[in-house]
């Protein structure tokens, strides 16, 4: 099928961070040095070539950007300083905006002002809401443990209604985007349709890659993988604690070792990983930190803020400073909510879903192709 070229796609990607891709003369060094590049998924050369030629639909259907972990080896070896690693990063941003049907992702990636404005807006609404209805008897000076918020909420505490509701909306958004990703990469192209068996056979890859990120460990440098894994596991630990053990988490002022110790460990992990990454980006010490998109800064700063305020309100509550703890808690939530509402479905967070999905889809595609080939061979033999 003839692919229509859209000259100028490279220019469109500039705002997503692909600043040097035009310099590439397709030598393929990047793909030769990448440990993950393996036929039929040859990258970064192939997606970069599609980008240069403006083959938009081929790019949309590419899984390759997600198979890259941005270790930066390709950028270091590139003879033209065309920053292939950064191009892959910008392609992930662009793909995120493509998968997202609301257009918000596109808006945020193209305008950091819009993203900051949206974050501030959600933060203000959240703070106002909690200040208005969030505290027992409307008294912010009073701390009432797990029942402190949304007191009308029944046995779990009202705040649970809120965060489960939010989780539901996020899940719907994320799943819709994931479905679009599936459509672009597997569904749309008749040649790429795979039988159900292929999907089932590869299913185990989803949790495997989600929890271990073991492909990242194959990259030339190991430290980025460790940092990334610590950050991700800490984040997931915190998410599980909050979603399922909020009552115990919020109890106090005594310390509940069963939840508070894992919580503090996770918070420490988050803080350490965030600070390492922030420092790296400031100093540009690793190749993958040589270039930072505005969305990278927003992501890290938000995470730092949320972790810091979370730990602070915990400490303040233990210290019996109810008013200060409650104010900090509102400030914490004013960070958490926009982070979850905006970053998970529309921003950088979304890659926690897209990357394992891409690894999964890639295997499905390969499995289906192999099955098709053997079927043809069998037919030929018969």
């Amino acid at each position, binding site marked *: 099928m003839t692919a229509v070229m859209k000259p100028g796609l490279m220019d469109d990607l500039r705002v997503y961070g692909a600043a040097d891709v035009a*310099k590439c003369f397709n030598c393929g060094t990047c793909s030769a040095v990448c440990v993950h590049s393996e036929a039929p998924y040859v990258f970064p050369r192939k997606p970069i070539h599609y980008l240069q*030629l403006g083959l938009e639909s081929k790019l949309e259907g590419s899984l390759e950007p997600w198979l890259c972990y941005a270790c930066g080896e390709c950028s270091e070896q590139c003879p033209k300083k065309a920053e292939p690693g950064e191009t892959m990063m910008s392609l992930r941003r662009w793909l995120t905006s493509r998968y997202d049907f609301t257009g918000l992702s596109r808006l945020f990636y193209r305008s950091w002002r819009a993203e900051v404005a949206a974050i501030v807006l959600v933060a203000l609404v959240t703070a106002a809401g909690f200040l208005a209805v969030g505290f027992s008897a409307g008294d912010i000076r009073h701390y009432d443990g797990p029942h402190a918020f949304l007191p009308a909420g029944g046995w779990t505490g009202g705040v649970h209604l809120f965060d489960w509701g939010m989780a539901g909306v996020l899940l719907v958004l994320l799943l819709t985007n994931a479905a679009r990703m599936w459509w672009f990469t597997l569904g749309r192209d008749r040649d790429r349709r795979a039988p159900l068996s292929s999907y089932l056979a590869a299913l185990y890859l989803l949790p495997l890659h989600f929890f271990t990120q073991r492909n990242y460990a194959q990259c030339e440098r190991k430290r980025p993988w460790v940092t990334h894994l610590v950050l991700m596991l800490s984040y997931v630990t915190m998410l599980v604690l909050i979603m399922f053990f909020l009552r115990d988490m919020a109890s106090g002022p005594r310390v509940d070792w069963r939840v508070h110790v894992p919580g503090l460990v996770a918070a420490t992990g988050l803080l350490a990983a965030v600070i390492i990454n922030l420092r790296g980006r400031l100093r540009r010490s690793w190749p993958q930190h040589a270039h930072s998109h505005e969305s990278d800064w927003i992501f890290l700063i938000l995470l730092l803020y949320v972790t810091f305020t979370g730990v602070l309100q915990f400490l303040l509550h233990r210290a019996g400073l109810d008013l200060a703890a409650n104010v900090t808690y509102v400030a914490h939530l004013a960070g958490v909510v926009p982070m979850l509402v905006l970053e998970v479905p529309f921003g950088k967070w979304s890659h926690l879903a897209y990357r394992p999905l891409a690894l999964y889809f890639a295997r499905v595609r390969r499995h289906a192709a192999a099955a098709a080939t053997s079927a043809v061979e069998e037919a030929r033999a018969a």
Partner: protein
Amino acid sequence: MSAAPRKIGVYVCQCGGNISDYVDVNAVVAAVEHEPGVTVAKTAMFTCSDATQQEIVQDARELGLDGLVVASCSPKLHTYTFRDVARRAGMNPFQYTQVNIREQCSWTHTDDHAGATAKAVRLVRAGINRTRLTEPLEPIVVETTPKSLVVGGGIAGLRAALGLAEVGLAVFLVEKEARLGGWVAGFGDMFPHGRSGAELIAALEAKVRAHPAITVFTNAELTAKSGSFGNYRVTVAVRGERSETIQLVVGSIVVATGFDTYQPAEGEFGYGLDGVVTLPEFKRLLDGTTGPLQYHGRPVETVAYIYCVGSRQSEDAGTGHTYCSRYCCTAAVHAAVKAAVIPAKPHQVHFYRDMRTYGKYELLYAEALATGSVFVKYPDEEPPAVSRDDATGRLTVTARDRLCGGDEVALQADLVVLVTGMVPRANDDLTKALKLPVGTSGFYNEIHPKLRPVETVVDGAYICGACQGPRTSAESVASSLAAVTQSAAVLKRGTAALDPLVAAVDPAACAWCGACETTCPYDAISRVAADGKEIATIARTACKGCGGCVPVCPSGAIDLQGYRDVQVRAMIDGMLEAVTP
């Protein structure tokens, strides 16, 4: 045959195994050492080595040799080497014979050692037989005219004229067109310096016009050449209100007639469709553009370039344009860099086979990439196709993308630029008048691409610039200065020495029938009166020693010095004689 017996030295080369692995060189020596006239016969590891050359010289002096046979490689390689050895050994250089037992024996008969050895014996014997009948010959020395004629007033010709004048030679510059400057005069900014071709030519022309030693003829063509090396008589026809014919005598002729651009056929890559142009046409459009790019009043947002149009064509196409035109990749990339800085910068997509922006022009390629040009490599066997939608007027280029699995891609473009190459000029009359050698692609041929890059088989006629083959203007000028040097080397000395291996007429036997005159491809034979009859005479400086006149002479009155009939017959006899193993 001379009365005194000859003393011939025979040296059979092993060529370090190249010969001796297949030819039994000792057997060859044994077979010929008792031939009449052979005084010494031996083998050597490398006859061309300094040590063996010394040995030959020493043998010659000790044994009083007066003839030399070296059986080694092709005469193309070492004729002059061993002529010099003969001279140093006190022999006449023309009493030496080179026998080729490498290219003609060992390398060709690797599967038949005995056969190769027998053949070598026959060839060496033939060489001895020729040498036995040699006579001492002296080079032909001619006085030369310190004037030069330059044909073609483009950048190469202008620079050559100026260079020749600067070394103190009188120069006639002949240009076919009404104005000087050729192609370059019509160019705007040129790579790599970014200066305008028109300005370059204007400066050069002013210098040429102002130089007192240079006479410029425009609207003029060289129509005939006679005479011989060092003293050619040329006829120049000048058109104009009063057409006239001018006769000039010159010592050398520098041919700088340049190239033509390839003109695509109707329909070739869509040529003929509105919006499909050649590179020179696009360059003119670009040179005249200051605002946003427009073509026929329509804005040009996307430009597609298709490379190798008229170059590197398949031999099966039969066009002769199998060569790479060398300059076009760089010229197209340079145009793209220029187009990238005009307002409303267009998208530019290059469909290429191989990018050959060699040397420092690589930087231009990098610049084109950096300014957003996109490059799509198409397969040799499946060039892009161009079509036009009559309703929208948009052009579509469809190509296979070699760098991504050969998938088909399509580009909508407002302008398609066919990156056309260089083709030889149709200059048949000049080629005939000068008897210049033309290569398979139609460009003029030099003698040796490395060692004699501007000399031709016509002594004193030099070629330079794009008439020799596609090249950039910088390379053209470099070769034109090489032609200046070669001209000066001959003409400033005042005399020139030529090989005496030319035809000679026996006045007693000749009865002038004219057969030789019509046969001679070099116009070296004419009729003279001598002793009350008319006979043929050879202009020894014009004769190339091709021997064409010898067999057509009904009375056997012509012989070729160094290859007289008796010598050739003796060689044949030597080859036919049985070889006893």
